[in-house]
């Protein structure tokens, strides 16, 4: 299909996406759930235009209707998968509440500087119609919207996939079978290989109250990766990652739709797992990055990195990861995906005391969610993971709030440095310290779009 004939949302190719204008607005989730402040979680709009007088500031806030949602991840109603469809528009951000299971549909197009609530799909309706709860990852494909749901209506694993139509009506369960899958979390698909890959966190009833490390040994947390027959909507193969793959979380395929290579960050093992379809047509996996646990001088148990997120640049050249407990972000050149090369590293917060202050701001938490500009040069970072887990590892975040920083990334030779001029301090929010989480750009970003 020629890109010239297309006038739908997104871009004809990852290469075209990289040439898009610089992002000027950021949409970021901010939460009060678990903080003691009895206010709704909200979506902030941040000015990311360096020539603007309000650069690096929150310029609008959209409160959700109720309290206690725990907004977490979010996704668009349409992406580059509908680039060929002129009737589609990247207009609505779907903003789920993990704890409430409410899906907030936010209109970001009518006034991009001040998103407004379009409608809410109530968690009670989702539970009644699909027996699913705890929404996580939102992906669109064509006019369909698919959301991974981590539990059944009672918060038990393995959950499943909620299917919405383009008008946000509940179609039902997307999958035809969960097979022997024990847990759900993130997913990504690569339609030209008829494959979807899904990862495993835990049952909502296990992870929502907080992280009991001891439960990992009782198999309450995931350690497998699943390949699906995407058209048949059924799992076809599982990789048992074992001790190398404890808590496999964020799943990223190469953006190149012809590639079979993908990566997952195993949070607790602090490893990066790489998978691909080999020349013999078999899917293979290997561990390509292993972050060593670090000793804290006063603690009996060594501290794992806890890789809470990974992300690939739009040209599939760099992989970024965050060690939320250690406090570092790393950049690897994965030109050869079997042999990654560490090319950059910066520190902010963390439990090891390496960077307690950045840009004059006390950092509570560690580098957590990241979003990279389409051209690969600016990485936006936030510090909160999940309210109960924040409260365990970084209790001071209750009074300090979260923070967003920007990292300048060198795309020629590799390398990273924290930008000294950009900081959004969520400790200074009007209703008190809040915590910031996932970020998206109005025009699509490095984790939102899939090419078919």
């Amino acid at each position: 299909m020629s890109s010239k004939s297309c006038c739908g949302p997104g871009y004809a190719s990852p290469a075209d996406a990289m040439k898009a204008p610089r992002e000027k607005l950021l949409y970021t989730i901010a939460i009060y759930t678990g903080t003691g402040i009895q206010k709704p979680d909200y979506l902030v709009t941040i000015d990311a235009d360096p020539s603007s007088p309000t650069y690096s500031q929150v310029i609008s806030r959209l409160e959700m209707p109720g309290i206690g949602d725990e907004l977490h991840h979010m996704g668009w109603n349409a992406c580059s998968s509908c680039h060929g469809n002129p009737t589609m528009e990247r207009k609505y951000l779907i903003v789920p509440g993990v704890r409430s299971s409410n899906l907030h549909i936010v209109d970001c197009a009518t006034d991009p500087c001040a998103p407004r609530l379009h409608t809410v799909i109530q968690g009670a309706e989702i539970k009644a119609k699909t027996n699913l709860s705890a929404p996580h990852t939102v992906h669109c494909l064509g006019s369909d919207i698919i959301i991974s749901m981590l539990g059944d209506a009672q918060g038990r694993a393995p959950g499943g996939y909620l299917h919405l139509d383009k008008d946000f009506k509940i179609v039902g369960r997307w999958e035809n079978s969960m097979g022997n899958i024990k847990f759900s979390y993130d997913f990504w698909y690569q339609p030209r290989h008829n494959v979807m890959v899904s990862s495993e966190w835990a049952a909502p009833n296990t992870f929502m109250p907080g992280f009991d490390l001891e439960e990992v040994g009782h198999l309450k947390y995931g350690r497998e990766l699943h390949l699906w027959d995407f058209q048949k909507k059924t799992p076809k193969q599982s990789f048992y990652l074992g001790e190398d793959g404890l808590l496999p979380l964020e799943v990223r395929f190469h953006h190149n739709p012809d590639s079979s290579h993908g990566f997952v960050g195993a949070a607790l093992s602090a490893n990066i797992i790489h998978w691909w379809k080999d020349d013999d047509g078999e899917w293979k996996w290997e561990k390509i990055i292993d972050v060593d646990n670090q000793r804290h001088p006063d603690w009996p148990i060594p501290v794992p990195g806890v890789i809470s997120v990974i992300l690939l640049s739009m040209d599939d050249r760099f992989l970024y990861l965050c060690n939320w407990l250690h406090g570092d972000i790393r950049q690897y050149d994965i030109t050869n995906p079997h042999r990654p090369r560490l090319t950059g590293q910066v520190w902010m917060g963390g439990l090891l005391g390496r960077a307690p202050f950045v840009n004059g701001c006390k950092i509570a938490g560690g580098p957590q969610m990241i979003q990279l500009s389409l051209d690969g040069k600016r990485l936006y970072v936030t510090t909160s993971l999940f309210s109960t887990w924040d409260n365990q590892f970084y209790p001071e975040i209750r009074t300090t709030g979260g923070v967003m920083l920007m990292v300048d990334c060198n795309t020629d030779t590799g390398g990273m440095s924290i930008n000294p001029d950009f900081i959004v301090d969520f400790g200074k929010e009007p209703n008190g310290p809040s915590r910031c989480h996932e970020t998206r750009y109005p025009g699509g970003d490095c984790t939102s779009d899939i090419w078919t």
Partner: protein
Amino acid sequence: MTTTRTITLANRGGATYNVGHRKPLLESLMAQGVDLPYGCRYGGCITCAAKLLEGKVNQAAQVALNNRQLKDGYVILCVARPLTDCTLAVGVESHDKLYRNPFIDPLQPHELKADIATPQEV
């Protein structure tokens, strides 16, 4: 047997509320204007946890607390029903023992959640 219970909120100036014994405490207290945190509303997520200082509740429906948190008196208000008059500390001010860093302070086998805990050796 009377069907109402008196609930005292120790950290809200000792305010008292009469509530039904069949309804979850979160629902009863919020209906009377008490501003309380909550999340899942089915006993799975501890956002609404409170500390029971006196009295007894039935919270058989909760699946969020481990045995150490239970021993420290935590109750899940969205599913807990009062069996007797109760005194509670509510909100995050009562969460001093609810959260722990597992790398500093591991659980003993008998302190895990009920479904995987091993009996305590005596």
